[in-house]
């Protein structure tokens, strides 16, 4: 009996039990698709995290004050920021941008109100350093900053809220009782976490301090290195200068204020490349965790396949008995059942991969899944192996039975 005939027998066997065949394939499909998608979601969120961190700019460091009370002696001020621009002590610094942030300031245009979640006052160098390009219009100039002109660059969200269908350039908006002229709109930026990165407005430091925040301390100082591999050097240069400027009062105030705190400096330096390294580690842990979850679901899926295969073959033991009584050799019966199992697992697995590929083109819980090719191979391989083994093993056992025992099987 030729292999072609056996394949036809297997196909007939599958089509004779359409519902059961379909359910078996569905089980395999779900198992395979779940594993591939789960790993893809893990990988996608890890990738999203690192993308966001890279978007922050990898050649910058951010200096922030750790002082809660904000005593003048430990606070970051404009003179301190200016002191960081020092070709002798800090040769690797490209630019320094002092930053003040006014949270939730209301911007009004012709009666429309919008609460901007982050209203930033800074210097023009900030745009390049923070990787925030201006889309339309222009950014403000050093002269604008020096003169304290009330001009503002707004984010995409602000533009859509206040100027639907209108060109916002050169329009006047009211912020904190003062008129600002919109001179530019930022390009769309991918959101970093829960906050909408596009719900922002950037204005000259002097203007923001005058109108919104007052002349207190800075929120942070953004320092740009001349190249990404100079970031560590810049960090130590900045630390040296800050220690010099804050030394005396810093020791006195830290001992009195933060008892057991190991950090004795009144400032904190955030290094984007360090952050990236840490986050990559975190993402790896995350992927491992999801991999473990995927392995468990593959195991559960595998048990499902095992179950269906066992039931299918057991239920057909009688049929195997009939076939043997009609003179079917053991080899032919075994081949038929193995081909049936192979077709079910391969078709189910292939459909599962297809479902996973289709599913990965959608966002799942806010994450764009990124398929890991090896997960496809693993999921397919395991489910096909399980299907073959647990389809083949009981079939070979049944084929070895004496026909009378197989016929009597209930």
């Amino acid at each position, binding site marked *: *009996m030729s292999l072609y*005939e056996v394949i036809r027998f297997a196909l007939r066997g599958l089509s004779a039990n359409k519902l059961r065949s379909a359910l078996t394939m569905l089980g395999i499909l779900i198992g395979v698709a779940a594993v591939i998608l789960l790993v893809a979601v893990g990988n996608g969120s890890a990738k999203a995290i690192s993308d966001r961190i890279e978007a922050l700019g990898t050649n910058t460091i951010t200096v922030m004050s750790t002082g809660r009370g904000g005593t003048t002696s430990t606070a970051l001020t404009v003179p301190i920021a200016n002191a960081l621009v020092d070709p002798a002590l800090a040769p690797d610094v490209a630019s320094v941008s002092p930053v003040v942030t006014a949270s939730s300031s209301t911007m009004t245009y012709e009666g429309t109100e919008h609460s901007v979640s982050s209203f930033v006052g800074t210097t023009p160098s900030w745009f390049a350093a923070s990787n925030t390009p201006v889309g339309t219009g222009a950014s403000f100039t050093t002269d604008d900053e020096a003169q304290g002109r009330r001009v503002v660059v707004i984010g995409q969200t602000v533009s859509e809220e206040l100027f639907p269908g209108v060109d916002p350039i050169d329009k006047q908006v009211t912020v904190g009782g003062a008129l600002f002229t919109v001179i530019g709109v930022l390009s769309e930026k991918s959101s970093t976490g829960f906050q909408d990165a596009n719900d922002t407005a950037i204005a000259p430091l002097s203007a923001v301090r005058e109108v919104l925040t007052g002349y207190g301390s800075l929120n942070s100082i953004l320092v740009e290195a001349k190249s990404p591999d100079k970031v560590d050097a810049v960090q130590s240069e900045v630390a040296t200068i800050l220690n010099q400027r804050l030394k005396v009062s810093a020791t006195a105030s830290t001992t009195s204020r933060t008892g057991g705190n190991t950090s004795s400096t009144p400032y904190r330096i955030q290094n984007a490349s360090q952050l990236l390294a840490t986050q990559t580690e975190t993402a790896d842990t995350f992927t491992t965790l999801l991999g473990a979850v995927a392995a468990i679901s593959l195991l559960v899926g595998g048990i499902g396949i095992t179950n269906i295969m066992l039931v299918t073959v057991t239920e057909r033991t009688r049929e195997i008995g009939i076939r*043997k009584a*009609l*003179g*079917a*050799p053991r080899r032919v019966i075994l081949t038929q059942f193995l081909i049936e199992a192979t077709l079910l697992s391969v078709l189910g697995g292939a459909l599962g991969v297809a479902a996973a590929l289709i599913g990965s083109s959608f966002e799942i819980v806010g994450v764009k899944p990124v398929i890991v090719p090896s997960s496809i191979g693993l999921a397919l391989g395991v489910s096909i192996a399980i299907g073959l083994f647990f389809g083949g093993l009981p079939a070979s056992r049944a084929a070895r039975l*004496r026909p009378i025992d197989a016929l009597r099987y209930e």
Partner: protein
Amino acid sequence: MPRPVLDVRDLTKVYGTGEATVHALAGVTMSVDRGDYVAIMGSSGSGKSTLMNILGALDVPTAGSYHLDGVDVSKLVDRQLALARNRLIGFIFQAFNLIPRTTALANVELPLAYAGVKAKERRRRALAALEVVGLADRAKHEPNQLSGGQQQRVAVARALVTEPALLLADEPTGNLDSHSTADVLEVFDELSASGRTIVLITHEPEVGDRAKRLIRLVDGRIVEDIRQSAVDQIPVGAATGRHTR
């Protein structure tokens, strides 16, 4: 004298061990000539089903020899047994045992497929076999669309399609009503008239009466062996059948 189709000597079959030992067959010796139509009768537990399963090469005896068409079946390995079941024996079950959700034609083609017959030839022979049992018009029906009698006639067609030396039937009418029983028995009469060797087991006297030879089995032994009509004559019951010539 040509060699017998079937020849068993001192056949025994023991189930279980120790105190639970059951001697289903306690030394059966018989031989069946070509063209004979033998009915084996016996009450439940007389060992007739066990004997039938051994004759059909579905089960193996504990001791004794079994020659089928000159071949010593007890010496065959699994592969050759499959061949013997396929070529030498046509087995008809009490429970019909058609493959479910498969058409009558495909069921009848099955033994030919295992024999390696080409699809076209297979179809022709299967249709011819269905013609013999009078079911050519039901070739495309699945078992659940056929009555019990029709299913059993499909099973008969399946058993005779490979032109086996021996047709074995294990209570072929046990699951049928009297009308269907008559239909199936007529098919057997006709097959016997055309020279086929048939061995069937039954506990219904009207089935046994139609055979050419009647064997009674009690407790695994043959107690009676009656010749009811000559081997080369048509069976006694065939005269009253609808296929009377």
